[in-house]
């Protein structure tokens, strides 16, 4: 058995109040609860504030180069499938410079726990807009506001055939630990979007849901098999209407709990899961937290290993000297 202490290392150097502190504590807790030995765990990150995280875990770890964490983690997992790998990236690292590796890790469905710490800003380089900053966002590199639309991580993940997507708010320890554990238990590429506040350059970006009171009003915890109900007194629910979702009040207009949509994270078709993931306060919806999609599919590293075993059974050569004999050989006497 391992305790939280077994996974802790060093003194984090993030700014006081940074969401990364909260997330790190939840990761340590999830690791201890999952019980994978530190020496069978690898934490691999790219570059950025959040990518400093591997220095604060007592496992095998690697802080790599900007954007490449998913690619490096892919090689590590294929070479050593017994490792449990946590790949840590921020929104710049994962979705800008590393966007290509992010989508291809999804598509291949390699068993990585891909953590996307999304603060919608570049912190380490001191305050430029990121690919998740909203249109019009004013920053040091966009003094008159950006003129581009952001990526929405869930949309990108689903578009790349992602089979697991979950979301948590960094300050919500229970919710974060829950999605991290679910991500580890899911076999295949799992993306956890962690909504995390940058106190220096983008303070307040998640204010409506950063504290538990706010989440009661403005967020919904989705759970597979349970009705999609939220509100301070669980008075609201989600129903399907036309091509979209709609918020309804239970008890009004004849709506009962039975009318409320039941969450199906295991549904192969991601249409409704995407709609859940896309909800935001601006459009009068709660922000969905928890495991939004969790669909099993063959994983890349397992398929690679299986193919090797299958071919070993079929081919007649199993070492280098036998390989030589498969060629056209002549003898000079």
């Amino acid at each position: 058995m391992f305790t939280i202490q077994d996974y802790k290392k060093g003194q984090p150097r993030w700014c006081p109040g940074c969401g990364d502190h909260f997330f790190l504590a939840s990761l340590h807790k999830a690791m201890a609860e999952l019980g994978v030995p530190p020496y069978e765990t690898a934490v691999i990150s790219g570059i950025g504030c959040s990518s400093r995280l591997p220095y604060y875990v007592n496992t095998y770890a690697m802080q790599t180069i900007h954007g490449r964490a998913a690619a490096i983690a892919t090689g590590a997992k294929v070479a050593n499938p017994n490792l449990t790998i946590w790949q840590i990236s921020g929104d710049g690292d994962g979705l800008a410079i590393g966007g290509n590796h992010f989508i291809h890790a999804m598509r291949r469905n390699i068993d990585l726990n891909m953590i996307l710490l999304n603060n919608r800003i570049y912190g380490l380089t001191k305050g430029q807009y990121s690919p998740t900053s909203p249109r019009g966002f004013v920053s040091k590199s966009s003094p008159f506001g950006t003129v581009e639309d952001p990526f929405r991580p869930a949309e990108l993940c689903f578009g790349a055939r992602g089979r697991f997507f979950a979301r948590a708010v960094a300050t919500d320890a229970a919710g974060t630990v829950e999605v991290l554990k679910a991500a580890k238990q899911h076999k295949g590429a799992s993306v956890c979007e962690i909504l995390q506040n940058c106190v220096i350059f983008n303070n307040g970006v998640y204010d409506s849901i950063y504290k538990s009171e706010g989440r009661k009003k403005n967020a919904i915890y989705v759970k597979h098999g349970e009705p999609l109900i939220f509100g301070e007194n669980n008075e609201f629910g989600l129903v399907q209407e036309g091509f979209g979702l709609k918020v309804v009040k239970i008890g009004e207009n004849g709506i009962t709990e039975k009318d409320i949509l039941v969450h199906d994270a295991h549904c192969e078709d991601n249409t409704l899961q995407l709609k859940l993931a896309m909800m935001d306060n601006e459009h009068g919806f709660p922000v969905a937290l928890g495991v939004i999609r969790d669909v099993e599919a063959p994983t890349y590293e397992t398929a690679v290993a299986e193919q090797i075993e299958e071919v070993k059974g079929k081919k007649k050569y199993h070492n280098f000297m036998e390989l030589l004999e498969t060629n056209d050989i002549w003898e000079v006497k």
Partner: protein
Amino acid sequence: MAENLEVKELEQVVVRFSGDSGDGMQLAGNIFSTVSATIGNGISTFPDYPADIRAPQGSLTGVSGFQVHIGEGKVYTPGDKCDVLVAMNAAALKTQYKHAKPQATIIIDTDSFGPKDLEKAEFKTADYLAEMGIDEDRVVACPITKMVKDCLADSGMDNKAIMKCRNMFALGIVCWLFNRDVTLVENFLREKFAKKPQIAENNIKVVNAGFNYGHNTHAGVPATYRIESKNKVKGRYMDITGNKATAYGLIAAAEKAGMKLFLGSYPITPATDVLHELAKHKSLGVTTVQCEDEISGCASAVGASFAGAMAATSTSGPGVCLKSEAINLAVIDELPLVIIDVQRGGPSTGLPTKSEQTDLLQALYGRNGESPMPVIAATSPTDCFDAVYSAAKIAVEHLTPVLLLTDAYVANGSAAWKLPNIAELPEIHPHYAPESMKGNYTPYKRDEETLVRYWGIPGREGFTHILGGLEKDSDTGAISTDPENHDKMCRLRAGKVARIPVPDLEVLGDKDDAELLIVGFGGTAGHLYSAMEELRKKGHKVAAAQFKFINPLPKNTAEVLMKYKKVVVAEQNLGQLAAYLRAKVDGFVPYQFNQVKGQPFVVSELVESFEEIINK
């Protein structure tokens, strides 16, 4: 008539098969070289592909060639110009004739020289021979298409399939011309088409038809030829290209080291065959990942190395540009990695199918920071095996990325390879952390003598650690921005690479009293050696030394370079090795021979230039 034809002995001969990309010239050339090797001739081959994906049939850009050099003893290059040119269509004659010697025999398929063919090949008149200034007496003009059609009329094959056998007719004529035993060709075809015996028999029928055509008509030539086999080295052989030898070397090294082989790669000409070859051998446990880009090809290999695999990534120059950041991560993390750069013409996309040696300085210096990395250059197709084996051995024993330079010429060229015995290959001992370090392991403790750190592999209890791209403390491995520490770490990393033992530079030829030392690196070895031999035959005192280990340089480098009055550094770039050697060896001022044509050196040109230097 046939009985009286003279048979002349030749020391060596160069045959160039050329035709449309779909004409099967490579197969014909391959069979001719293999049957020659079977009887003990030396062989060296080189394919010349068009850069276009599939140029229009019969067009000038769609011509592909395959040159075969065979000799009574060892041959070192595919030869400058050919003694026999096979041109299967008008475009081939037009584009390939420049590769023929003035007195070369030209074999053409007259059925492919109709008005349309001539037009596509941009001939202006119907008298194409006169237009090119070719003497008719040297031409074996044969209606190959018609004869192949007649030969296979009853085979039940459709016209398209029949046309694909034209190459075998040409091969038959060449076999007759050089007195090759057709049964060897038959054996080859039966083996190659073991699963399609009917195809084998049809091809065999056509080869014999071609042979008989030569025999019965004398094909208008005054004599046929024979190349005996001399200085045979007994043993078992196969024909191998450089890329295949590279793949085989990685397989052998991983097996010898007891490691899993991982290749992360992205397709790129002319390196892709390394990926193709390794992807075939899953039964040996080889893992290949075709990545989303070059960056990921290298990054995944770095990850695999971190996780304990023997990791490699294969590419060409443009790919090295993209990989350099991940290579640098392996440099600072001190992780083993083999990077294979099959050089092609540059800069940028350059000449993707052509060969040069223009990535040397990129390999040595093309990364930010002080970034020392061993560089090795393979000297021939078969040397790719030994060179990549050395690279892999150095990588895992000294915990460093190693870059292997080959080039399109070496990678696609082939030669007879004496099969190695894995038991006799050098031992490989990865520098794993000893069990005694369990519990107190830090990743940057080093062997005091070699300066190599100890490798802790994820999964092993008691060795957890972090590696990173940030500078680390030389003792604890923790992040450090201390100025003294950084200076120390830069020197440690450089010192580690400098201490890697490499073999001495070997001097061939007149090593004691040469008037001129010819120096090169990598794939030009055969041409430079041949040039040296030519010059010696002419009575000059000449020596040659070819660099294979470039970083670190052999210990005797300065001694060799400064020993001779005149030294010429010959390379397929504008002077990269010369600049490097001048930086490394005080007072070294060589003559230079530089060519960047995308084509292999031409021995006769080398001889002429070197003679000028001797006579200065």
